[in-house]
C-alpha cells in the first residue's frame, strides 16, 4: 500500500518536473504572465482608477471586489460551520 502510494507520488512528481521545463525561468521579465496586457494595465492604471498606491489592494478591493466579497463570505461560513459542528448543544 505504501509502496503503491510512493510510486504514484514519484510518477506525479516526475510529470510535474517534466511539465515545469516549459515554464519561464525564475525571475524572467519576459514571462507571458508579466508581459500580458492586463498585468501592464493594472500596473499603469491602478492609481488613476482606484487612488491607491498599493496595486495588490487596488486589485483585491476594486478590480476583483466581487471575488473578495465571496472570499469574506467563505471565511464567515467556515467560522459559523465550526461553531455549529462543535457547539451545537449550546446554541
Amino acid at each position, binding site marked *: 500500500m505504501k509502496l503503491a502510494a510512493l510510486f504514484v507520488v514519484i510518477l506525479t512528481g516526475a510529470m510535474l518536473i517534466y511539465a515545469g521545463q516549459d515554464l519561464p525561468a525564475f525571475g524572467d521579465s519576459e514571462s507571458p504572465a508579466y508581459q500580458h496586457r492586463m498585468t501592464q494595465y493594472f500596473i499603469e492604471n491602478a492609481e488613476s482608477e482606484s*487612488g491607491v*498606491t*498599493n496595486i495588490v*489592494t487596488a486589485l*483585491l478591493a476594486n478590480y476583483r471586489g466581487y471575488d473578495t466579497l465571496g472570499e*469574506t463570505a467563505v*471565511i464567515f461560513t467556515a*467560522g459559523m460551520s465550526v461553531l455549529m459542528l*462543535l457547539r451545537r448543544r449550546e446554541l
Partner: protein
Amino acid sequence: MSDIQQSIIIRTIVRIMIPFILLFSLYVIMHGASGPGGGFQGGVIFGAGIILYAMIYGIEEAKKKISDKANRILASGGLVLYAGTGLLAILFGGMFLEYGVIPLMPTTAYTAKILIDVVEIGIGMTVLAVMISLFFDISPPETEEDMHIHEEVE
C-alpha cells in the same frame, strides 16, 4: 501548558506586548491602501494577539475581553459593511461595487480610495472575529484545575 501559563516572565511579557500587537494590526488594516497591508493581514494579526492572550491567561479570561456575542456581531458586521458598500453604489445608479459613482469626494479615484479603506475594515472585522472564534471553538473547554492555576498565579 500549565508550566508555561504559570511562568511570571511570560505572563508579564504577554501583558506588555498585546497592546502593541493590536495597535500594529490596526495600522496594517488602515495602511492597506498605501503600503504593505490590508484587511486579511491586519485581521489575522489582531486575532493572533487575542489568541496569545487566551493561550496564556486562559480561554475564560479572554472571553471576558471579547465575548462570543461580540465575535458573531463583528463577523457578520464586517460582511454587511462590505456588501453594504457594494449596494450603496447601486443606490447611486452604478453597478455593484462600482465605487466611483458615489458622490463622496470630488474625484472618483479619491472616492474609490476612501471606500476601499471601508471595505478593508469590513474584511478585517470578519477575519479577526472568525480567527478568534475558531480558536475558542476548537480548543478544549477549561477544567477546574486550569482555572485554579490562573487564580494561584494572580
